[in-house]
């Protein structure tokens, strides 16, 4: 039986559903991310787990016990907020010890735990400072220490890195993951940042308009998106309308240019229009290595993105992008040149029937 389980959980506000029939089983010690755009229901779901929202339907169980209607202060869940939510009138030490003081723990126990937690988040020198005397990253580390000090059953993180600058965000997310692994604590992390979710999670729940689009490991979510939304939302993606030419051989045609795909074509007939997707990094120049698909293209533009070079190409009348690593001996074609690019059969995904 799963440690934390959400079964058919829905939340209705007025006439509209913020979350609909949400099902998820989380194992103990797992790091799960809820990923999706604003308004997809990820924070509402997290708040239902925390107890700040009561589900309209469904059940939430933790370690076998039903917690659906339990008050938030009786759930033993540590929560971290985007705005840090540190108590301004308390020092770092007092903030971290707050949960234990509420639980009427002994003074020595509180002191020991505060010491342990500040050392865990490397804030030993700041224990007597007030929140306003700390940087954003330090404040969020205090919030993490405060949430962990109560030894929560589940750690809930509501976009905790969104208010921080890029460098601190990257280092703090690594620190959060490291601490979570060391303590073996179950964590649910809400984010709209796909890179954050891909880098930190054991599994990702991609949500859209209150529904779960796909649940899977970062590898599966990125490489094998099951819906068009997931394919578009996670990573960069080339999409184009293709015509089914030969279902058995997996052959498709984009503006008269033939592509072979390894995707299943059950239910499709010759002549059906489908939307295909190819990740930019799955293309390479055919002069290097030839894969199953070798197609003619015209170079439209070249953009340097640091470690990656993005090449904009025209295949038939459809525009695609190709990402290639930037290395000193890289020989790039000229803009306007005719070239051949290649990609494997597996790189050509079918997202479903082409709408319109």
């Amino acid at each position, binding site marked *: 039986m799963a440690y934390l389980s959400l079964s058919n959980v829905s939340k209705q506000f007025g006439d509209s559903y913020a979350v609909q029939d949400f099902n998820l089983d989380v194992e103990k010690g797992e790091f799960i991310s809820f990923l999706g755009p604003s308004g997809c229901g990820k924070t509402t779901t997290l708040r239902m787990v*925390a*107890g*700040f929202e009561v589900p309209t339907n469904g059940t939430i169980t933790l370690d076998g016990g039903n917690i659906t209607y339990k*008050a*938030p*202060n*009786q*759930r*033993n*869940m*540590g*929560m971290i*907020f985007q*705005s840090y*939510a*540190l*108590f*301004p*009138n308390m020092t770092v030490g007092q903030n971290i010890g*707050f*949960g234990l003081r*509420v*639980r009427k723990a002994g003074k020595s126990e509180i002191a020991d735990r505060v010491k342990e937690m500040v050392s865990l988040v490397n804030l030993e020198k700041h224990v007597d400072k*007030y*929140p*306003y*005397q700390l940087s954003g990253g330090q404040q969020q580390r205090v*919030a993490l220490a*405060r*949430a962990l000090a*109560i030894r929560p059953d589940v750690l*809930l993180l509501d976009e905790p890195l969104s208010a921080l600058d890029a460098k601190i965000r990257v280092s703090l997310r690594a620190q959060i993951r490291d601490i979570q692994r060391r303590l073996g604590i179950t964590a649910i992390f809400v984010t709209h940042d796909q890179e954050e979710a891909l880098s930190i999670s054991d599994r990702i729940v991609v949500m859209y308009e209150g529904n779960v689009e796909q649940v899977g490991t970062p590898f599966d979510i990125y490489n094998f998106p099951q819906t068009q939304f997931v394919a578009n939302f996670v990573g960069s993606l080339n999409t184009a309308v293709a015509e089914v030419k030969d279902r058995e051989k997996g052959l498709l045609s984009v503006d008269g240019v033939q592509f072979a795909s390894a995707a299943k074509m059950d239910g499709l007939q010759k002549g059906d229009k489908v939307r295909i997707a190819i990740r930019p990094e799955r293309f390479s120049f055919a002069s290097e290595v030839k894969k199953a698909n070798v197609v003619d293209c015209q170079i439209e533009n070249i953009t340097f993105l640091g470690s990656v070079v993005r090449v904009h190409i025209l295949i038939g009348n459809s525009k695609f992008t190709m990402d290639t690593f930037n290395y000193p001996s890289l020989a790039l074609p000229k803009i306007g040149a005719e070239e051949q690019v290649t990609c494997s059969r597996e790189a050509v995904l079918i997202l479903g029937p082409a709408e319109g």
Partner: protein
Amino acid sequence: MNISPRTAQVVMKASASTAKDQIRNRFWSWVIFVGGALYFLIPLAATFYWSLRAKKDVLGFEAYRKLFADSNFLPSFSESIVNAITAIFISLLIIVPTAYWVMLRLPRLRPVIEFITLLPFVIPAVVLVFGLIRLYSRPPLLFTATYGSSRVLLVCVYAALSFPYMFRAVDNGLRAMDVRSLTEAAQSLGANWSTILLRVIFPNLRVALLSGALLTFAIVIGELTIALYMAQHTLGPYMAELTRSKVYEPSAMAIVAFAITWAAMGIIQLIGRGQAGQIAGGR
């Protein structure tokens, strides 16, 4: 970079005219400031000067000595202080949980609550006191039968009079912090409502509560109309009586009342200065 003489001339003219404007603006600011200050300070200085002339041809504090020596002064003064402090506590107990709950759970009710708290501003004191006497002078709500019960009613009215100041002060204080996140953070750490209010909300509203409380104090301490009609022996009626029977002591009393009010304002400033950064930075 080369700048043509013509461009330099234009730039110099523009900066000279900006400097002239600044001097002109500063001059008029000072004129307005001095005018305003004189408008307030001349009557105050005149009152103070008058209060020092109790002894013929000698300036001294005779009026103040007589005032403090008057057997009615200290009882009425202390009664007003007790009334004010009790009214502040009643007001705090009503306003803080109400404003907190409205902000957290019932934001749509905020305009309604704001309107209700503004009523003491709209209803004149004379109308209010006659309404109260009519309502509370017969059973089962007989509050005017004894001096003590009238005093209870008076304190409750003072608490209501403080609502416009107290609600605004508390509301501003709550808006200056992320009430929802702080509440939820405390809840997730196991705190119940009373713990949240006492350990998280109240301490962070310290400045707001003090300003509300001291404004209430300043208003209640010299309140005349309601206390007079309820036959209470507080500072307001005492001052009115003094004006009718004495010459210099009322001026001395006015200066003492003024000093108390300004001392209250000074305390707000002093305490507020210490905490503003802490609350702003904690957000």
